[in-house]
């Protein structure tokens, strides 16, 4: 098999070429130990097999950026047979800088001139034969976006794989030649890589290469200072200059610029998009559109996908062993719990898909770096980066987002410290699942002031994120590697539908694969913690007694009807109640009249005897139906009470109570603790748990009303809970992504426990202050808001200390 590596500078259309070669058959993973995408594929062409690996885009081969290190290590370690160098034909001169360094490796190279259409539009005339002759390699013209050049490329690769390079390409490095020769002498290593290349990189004091060839750093330092003394030349600058000079020579011999001063479309567009006055409004519109399309419309789309998930759940419930009144088999309980956990996450897939597709479009168009350009100054103040904008928006900078895609979008941030700070602050944003919790508490305690409270909640989160980012970058993250903000603004391109969809599907699939597995594993643990040790024997006896009472009442009511012989045994009654419940569940999902008829027919076919009692037509059946409804209600109420009893007794309940001594300062009792603990699996469960803990059979009241009437809480309790929820730790899915993107369990744990600590401290502090100064709930929230705003302003006025990389001094 021929091993092929695709190399090229960023924005040269490398991924498009890779997609063109691989089709949908590609494998996306991370390079071992780092979070840089590793894409590979195996293809067959004319009986030959090629393994193609897409290297990260790099401008050069220094050791400073992560991508460069990964690409270089790959080329050094793997026995690559052919290197395909993809080049943006419209900016050939700068691209040659990398091409030269690849040529010096001494491996067969195919040069792909991509974006030939753009080059032609700009009236650049490239003399391919001349270029091929000067560089001594094969050249293929391609337009990746239109899938031109695939066959030619593969033919060239196949030819190149049979080549052996006897005399690698050489640039004359003038004064340095004698030093390069000296180092070549010193290298004992046998390698498929040109000795000269290793010597050149060694002279450039490349740490990776020095380690590989075993040359002491000091020897190179001596050489560098001797060069400086003798010729007054800086080694790095001179190497760069000589490469650029050579590139200039090649460029001028091979390219004719017919229309030198033409105003490109990109510069025309930039005059609007980056205009002093228009930049922010346009950015606002773009962000609003992303939010509207993905979060709002995506959420609406879940209305259409939800029935499928619900149908799946109903189907599963149907094949699980049926409950006998309040005795629900453990396997059924478990099955339902696991399906609920899974579909809670699967429900978000439409949102993710739209979001990922939009991100892919923004990436293709070239707006991402421009967004960073516009906002960098604001974010830099707080240790973040211009590129932090999108992750924060996706996380829910307006109300409602999701931290998972937000954290996934941090991948492109070049500055490691800012990237980690962004990863750790995105979970503070208001995710979609927090919203029901807010509305529950606001509905219960702040019905009148809902709008202003919601305004406080939705704007305060971004400020908190900024403060936390500033806090982290100047403490725990202060030693992290940072990168200078030097970024190319690529020319605008039209997005390619196929590639956008492909990437969206890939990312959704990655999410399902990585997140679901772990979430399900944790769901099992939570199930056990909630299920055991279970309801006590005395309580159980009480429930059984109540059940028997209800059954007796039912029996008396239906005795006189003609259907009695159908339901004179407990097992039959239980079957009937289950049938009633499952029909009601299915009926809820059925909208049209026709669908109802076919649903009825299906049920009737399966249960010819009992179904007429569920959909009664005659008087006797109606009487029974009324009795079932009552029995079903009692049954449900008992089940909820049992569930509450179970939670109260459960390990998680004990844990919640064990936390009470600490959480009481914030005004949380054990029930709130349990709700927060279970929200960890998925935030949705906070509302469900809290709701069911208060439901207590008062089923005619909404959860809002039952909490408000419970009397245990006052509005300041509610605000305290809201403050904790604002700062609350990420859910499990988010934690998994934090682990994936930061590549460290320690950061994952930090991302979990830091917000919990911060949340409990702030809730307790403001709860205490509110009690001391007898603030109302609104006042408490307002004062919290004012403090956060003031703190943000103070931090913004302080100058940030830059560290990690030095500006004027040598490392």
């Amino acid at each position, binding site marked *: 098999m021929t091993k092929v590596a695709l190399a090229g500078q960023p924005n040269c259309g490398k991924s498009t070429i890779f997609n063109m070669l691989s089709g949908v058959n590609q494998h996306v993973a991370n390079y071992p130990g780092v979070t840089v995408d590793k894409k590979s594929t195996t293809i067959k062409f004319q009986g030959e097999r090629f393994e193609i690996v897409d290297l990260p885009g790099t*401008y*050069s081969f*220094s050791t*400073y*950026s992560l991508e460069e290190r990964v690409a270089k290590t790959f080329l050094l370690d793997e026995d690559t047979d052919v290197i395909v160098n993809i080049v943006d034909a*419209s*900016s050939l*001169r*700068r691209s040659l*800088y990398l091409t030269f360094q690849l040529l010096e490796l001494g491996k067969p190279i195919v040069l792909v001139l991509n974006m030939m259409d753009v080059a032609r539009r700009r009236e650049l005339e490239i003399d391919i034969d001349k270029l091929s002759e000067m560089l001594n390699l094969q050249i293929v013209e391609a337009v990746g976006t239109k899938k031109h050049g695939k066959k030619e490329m593969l033919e060239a690769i196949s030819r190149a794989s049979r080549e052996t390079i006897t005399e690698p390409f050489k640039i004359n490095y003038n004064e340095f030649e004698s030093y390069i020769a000296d180092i070549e002498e010193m290298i004992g290593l046998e390698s498929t890589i040109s000795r000269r290349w290793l010597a050149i990189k060694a002279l450039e004091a490349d740490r990776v290469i020095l380690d590989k060839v075993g040359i002491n750093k000091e020897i190179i330092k001596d050489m560098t200072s001797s060069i400086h003394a003798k010729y*007054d*030349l*800086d080694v*790095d*600058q001179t190497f*760069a*200059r000589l490469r*650029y000079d050579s590139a200039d020579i090649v460029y001028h011999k091979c390219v004719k610029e017919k229309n030198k001063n033409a105003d490109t479309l*990109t*510069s025309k567009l*930039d005059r609007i998009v*980056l*205009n*002093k*006055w228009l*930049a*922010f409004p346009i950015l606002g519109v773009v962000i609003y559109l992303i939010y509207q399309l993905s979060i709002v419309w995506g959420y609406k789309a879940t209305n259409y996908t939800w029935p499928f998930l619900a149908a799946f759940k109903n189907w599963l419930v149907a094949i699980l062993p049926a409950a006998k009144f309040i005795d629900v088999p453990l396997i059924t309980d478990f099955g339902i719990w696991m399906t609920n956990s899974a579909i809670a996450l699967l429900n978000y897939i439409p949102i993710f898909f739209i979001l990922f597709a939009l991100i892919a479009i923004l990436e293709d168009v070239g707006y991402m*770096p421009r967004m*960073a*350009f*516009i906002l*960098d*100054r*604001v974010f*830099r103040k707080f240790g973040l980066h211009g590129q932090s904008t999108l992750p924060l928006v996706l996380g829910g900078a307006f109300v409602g987002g999701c931290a998972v895609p937000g954290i996934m979008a941090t991948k492109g941030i070049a500055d490691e410290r800012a990237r980690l700070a962004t990863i750790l602050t995105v979970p503070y944003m208001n995710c979609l699942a927090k919203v029901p919790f807010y509305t529950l508490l606001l509905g219960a305690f702040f019905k009148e002031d809902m709008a202003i409270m919601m305004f406080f909640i939705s704007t305060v989160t971004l400020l908190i994120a900024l403060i936390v980012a500033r806090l982290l970058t100047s403490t725990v993250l202060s030693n992290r590697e940072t*990168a*200078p*903000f*030097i*970024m*190319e*603004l*690529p020319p605008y391109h039209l997005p390619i539908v196929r590639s956008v969809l492909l990437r969206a599907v890939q990312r959704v699939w990655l999410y399902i694969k990585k997140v679901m597995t772990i979430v399900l594993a944790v769901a099992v643990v939570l199930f056990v913690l909630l299920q055991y040790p279970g309801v006590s024997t005395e309580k159980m006896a009480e429930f059984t007694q109540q059940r028997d009472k209800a059954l007796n009442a039912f029996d008396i009511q239906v005795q006189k009807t003609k259907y009695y012989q159908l339901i004179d045994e407990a097992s039959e009654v239980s079957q009937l109640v289950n049938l009633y419940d499952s029909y009601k569940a299915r009926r809820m999902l059925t909208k049209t009249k026709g669908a109802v008829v076919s649903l009825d027919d299906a049920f009737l076919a399966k249960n010819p005897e009992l179904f007429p009692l569920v959909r009664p037509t005659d008087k006797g059946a109606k009487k029974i139906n009324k009795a079932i409804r009552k029995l079903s209600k009692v049954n449900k109420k008992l089940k909820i009470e049992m569930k509450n009893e179970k939670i109260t007794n459960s390990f998680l309940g004990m844990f919640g109570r064990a936390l009470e001594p600490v959480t009481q300062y914030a005004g949380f009792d054990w029930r709130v603790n349990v709700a927060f603990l279970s929200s960890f699996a998925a935030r949705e469960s906070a509302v469900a748990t809290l709701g069911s803990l208060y439901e207590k059979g008062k089923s005619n009241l909404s959860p809002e009303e039952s909490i408000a009437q419970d009397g245990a809480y006052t509005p300041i309790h509610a605000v305290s809970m809201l403050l904790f929820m604002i700062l609350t730790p990420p859910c499990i899915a988010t934690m998994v992504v934090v682990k994936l993107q930061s590549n460290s369990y320690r950061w994952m744990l930090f991302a979990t426990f830091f917000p919990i600590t911060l949340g409990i401290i702030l809730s307790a502090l403001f709860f205490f202050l509110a009690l001391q100064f007898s603030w109302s709930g609104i006042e408490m929230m307002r004062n919290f808001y004012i403090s956060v705003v003031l703190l943000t302003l103070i931090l913004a006025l302080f100058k940030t200390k*830059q560290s990690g*990389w*030095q*500006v*004027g*001094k*040598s*490392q």
Partner: protein
Amino acid sequence: MKQSTKPTLHLSDLKQNQKGIIRHCAAEGMLKQKLLSMGFIPGAEILMVRNAPLRDPIEIGIHNCLVTLRRREAKLIKVEML
């Protein structure tokens, strides 16, 4: 290194649409490597395209490409006005 007799100024001091030639770069380490690989070498011609809406960073045209950098970093590069 070639010494120019013409006066130089910081890259960050160029006004919009002014052109210049890089004469000296005081950056070190990672910043230097990054600048070199983007073509910021003595002798290269540059064009100050625009300031960001908040005046920082700045956008520079170099070797037919558009590159952004912060003022702090641009200060390290000395240019001769054309």
